[in-house]
């Protein structure tokens, strides 16, 4: 390319980047004719566009005995769709500097596109995105190849203490619920092309989709893009959820491993998305183990005793009751001591709640750092996609700071008492002496 053109390119970028942005995130929301939810944030500062389409098609919808189906279906969407094979998809995206991303977790299967927003550039990526969502080929030879790769990755993961602990933790917390089921080499081997096509037909529908757009678009352009995406999808219907998980009886799962460090997870099923106790738990957990370097767990486990490099706690609200979790890694010989200490820190917090000083510090950080949660298109996309997918109120971000500020110490204590019962805590250890 010519040097002068690149200079010009840089100059334009520099100009665009220097423009002030408006404060706050204005989410425009509507449904497409086919019934998909849409969230749109106009962000005209940079000549780029992010589109994310989320389906309620995560691993919780894996049929019994077919664990791994949701993830594999998602993985194959962009490995050949409509008129393009996997090579054409990757090459055409690269030719316009676009990327497809996403994946599947317990609740969601996501496909996201990042592209330059110039109409002739974005048209390529959007065409591929639409095809991947609506007309994946699920070619037999590619399915076999990806099954082999997935199976090998699962076998490898089962040698790693971190992965072993994570899988055992979910299995122990959710013995009767799909959240506790894990893909295995055997369950992957049993999957056939028909399973993928059936899963795709049932869950990748307009009724089951949430489309989030942020970037250099007008509302009219965003409407047109969303229409074109959802028009290719079958209308479908919202799919029923499994019965909600129950809180188990607690206990210890100890797994042997030759690692030098023990991996320790302690937790239980706690809350779902949109639960009214979310803000008291968020504010309280900041003091317990969410506040990075300043939490009680960090001070006691890392700073005072040097037991661990990383120690944390968090609530992970999901479509259905998601876990509360404490995690750390420590030299295997001191695992018992570290577990006892962590549980003692938790017990004290449950008994006392945060001090007034701690509560004030938690609120100062959570409200003060709020702008950092939204200072890029990527971060806004992540937040707004969650709002859209889980059906959180559209003013969720606008009211975030005031809801944090309104939390009292008594509410924290009461919310923790409701959701974290010490007797129900499950402790999972890998490589602990």
């Amino acid at each position, binding site marked *: 390319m010519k040097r002068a053109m690149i200079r010009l390119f840089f100059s334009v970028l520099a100009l665009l980047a220097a423009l002030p942005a408006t404060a706050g995130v204005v989410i425009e929301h509507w449904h497409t004719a086919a019934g998909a939810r849409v969230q749109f944030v106009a962000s005209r500062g940079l000549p780029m566009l992010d589109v994310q389409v989320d389906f309620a098609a995560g691993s919780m919808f894996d049929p019994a005995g077919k664990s791994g189906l949701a993830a594999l279906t998602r993985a194959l969407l962009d490995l050949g769709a409509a008129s393009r094979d996997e090579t054409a998809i990757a090459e055409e995206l690269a030719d316009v500097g676009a990327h497809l991303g996403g994946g599947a977790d317990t609740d969601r299967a996501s496909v996201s596109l990042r592209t330059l927003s110039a109409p002739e550039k974005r048209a390529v990526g959007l065409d591929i995105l639409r095809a991947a969502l609506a007309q994946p080929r699920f070619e037999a030879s590619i399915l076999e190849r990806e099954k*082999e790769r997935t199976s090998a990755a699962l076998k490898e993961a089962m040698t790693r203490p971190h992965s072993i602990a994570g899988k055992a933790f979910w299995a122990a917390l959710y013995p009767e619920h799909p959240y506790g089921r894990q893909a295995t080499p055997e369950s992957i081997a049993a999957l056939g092309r028909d399973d993928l096509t059936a899963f795709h037909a049932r869950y990748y529908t307009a009724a089951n989709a949430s489309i989030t757009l942020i970037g250099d678009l007008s509302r009219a352009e965003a409407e047109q893009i969303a229409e074109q995406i959802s028009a290719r999808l079958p209308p479908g219907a919202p799919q029923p959820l499994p019965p909600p998980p129950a809180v188990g009886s607690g206990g210890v799962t100890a797994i042997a491993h030759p690692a030098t460090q023990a991996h320790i997870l302690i937790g239980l099923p706690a809350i779902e998305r949109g639960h009214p106790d979310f803000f008291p738990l968020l504010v309280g957990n900041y003091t317990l183990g969410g506040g990075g370097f300043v939490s009680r767990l960090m001070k006691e486990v890392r700073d005072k005793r040097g037991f661990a490099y990383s120690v944390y706690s968090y609530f992970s609200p999901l479509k259905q009751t998601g876990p509360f979790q404490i995690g750390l890694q420590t030299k295997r010989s001191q695992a018992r001591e570290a577990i006892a200490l962590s549980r003692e820190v938790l017990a004290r917090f449950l008994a006392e709640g945060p001090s007034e000083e701690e509560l004030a510090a938690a609120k100062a950080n959570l409200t003060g750092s709020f702008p950092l949660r939204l200072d890029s298109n990527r971060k806004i996309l992540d937040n707004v996609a969650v709002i859209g997918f889980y059906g959180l109120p559209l003013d969720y971000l606008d009211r975030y700071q005031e809801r944090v500020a309104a939390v009292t110490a008594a509410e924290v204590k009461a919310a923790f008492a409701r959701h974290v019962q010490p007797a129900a805590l499950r402790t999972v250890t890998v490589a602990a002496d």
Partner: protein
Amino acid sequence: MRMRPRLLTALLCPWLIGAALANPFETTLDNGLRIIVKEDRRAPTAVHMVWYRIGSMDEVDGASGVAHVLEHMMFKGTPTVGPGEFNQRVAAAGGRDNAFTSRDYTAYFQQIPKEKLGEMMHLEADRMRHLTVDAKEFAQEIKVVMEERRMRTDDNPEAKLFEQMNAVALQTHPYRRPIIGWMNDLENMSAADAKAWYDTWYVPNNAYVVISGDVDHQEVFALAKTHYGPLAARPLPPRKQQVEPRQEGPRRITVKAPAELPTLIMAYKAPVLRDIEKDSDPYALQMLAAILDGHDAARFNKKLVREEKVALAAGIEYDNTARGPGMLYLHGTPAAGKTVADLEAALRGEIERVRRDGVSAAELKRAKAQLLASEVYKLDSMFGQAMEIGQIESAGLPYRQLGRMLEKLQAVSAADVQAVAGKYFADDALTVGVLDPQPLDGKPRRPAIPTRH
């Protein structure tokens, strides 16, 4: 609603372009501390980073890891800020902070609401010259660092392979030592070692500050003068340049660790940019890497993973900027029924194919289009923009030349790419590292199940 200026506006108003190109802005304080400001008004936040030109490559044998240990100790207080209080004050300001140590540099950062910048400068300036290295705090923190080493390296087979391979690929250059340090060196380290490191290297004339965000550069310069200005400069000890002797034959190493799959790394000595104008091979190698591994249908993934199914994954790593010697890594995991030898042959085959047949115009154009698009996406991250400036400076290259580097990359020809494929992949400059997976229970593995391949 605010309108975005059209391309035409930029073309017609050259003075606007001139003003925009001054961004980033820079000043140097009397004590030698450089302040670089990248204004980005998209959100009311800022990133404040202090980069010290001191990393693990400046350590000596027996004291590996001290740069990183000192990074941990930097949070343990000064006469006016108690242990842990640094983090508390950043948190109270609504900020997030951390630090990282590399072979070339040690850097500290805070992401903050923009109005807190002055307070962050106050804290960073304080610990730039007034750190307390308390023996009791050190005794706790060194245990934390050992846990970090266990987590990152000792229990991570790929990291262990990389660490050991590096120690074989390089024989004299300090890059052969791990950044986190050998465990035995950590066991022997004292608070006095950390203090000596700090006293020697933590001075304003060995640092630079990078700020990005919704700030006015003149105001930032004034704040910097207030907070950092009073710190005294001090001469630095001379740094002896250490040149790795020429490798004269291939080297091989095997590491055994609990795992399921073998891993292969092939490390080739490669050049890095020293002169942005005169050097050409580092640009060509970067484009080669993009053609081999820049997207899902790039050569490695297309041929080795998808078509020939010799690998479960295959990739290339090459960073063309560094203070020390450069290295280019080919790496991968063989597919079921294939061996590391099969994979090594296949990786060599792909390099040979470029050397023999060159690359297509379409492949090169694609790699360049991706590069240009990534320049736009980069601007979405305030943190990323500050990182880019900090990193290029750490390698001794001026951030003002980032645009010129992009031009040089865009000017790479297919013949250039073909030439470097023939020049830097000789066996004599190669070190091969193999992870030999071991069963978790220490018992021999069952014989492999026969495969269809």
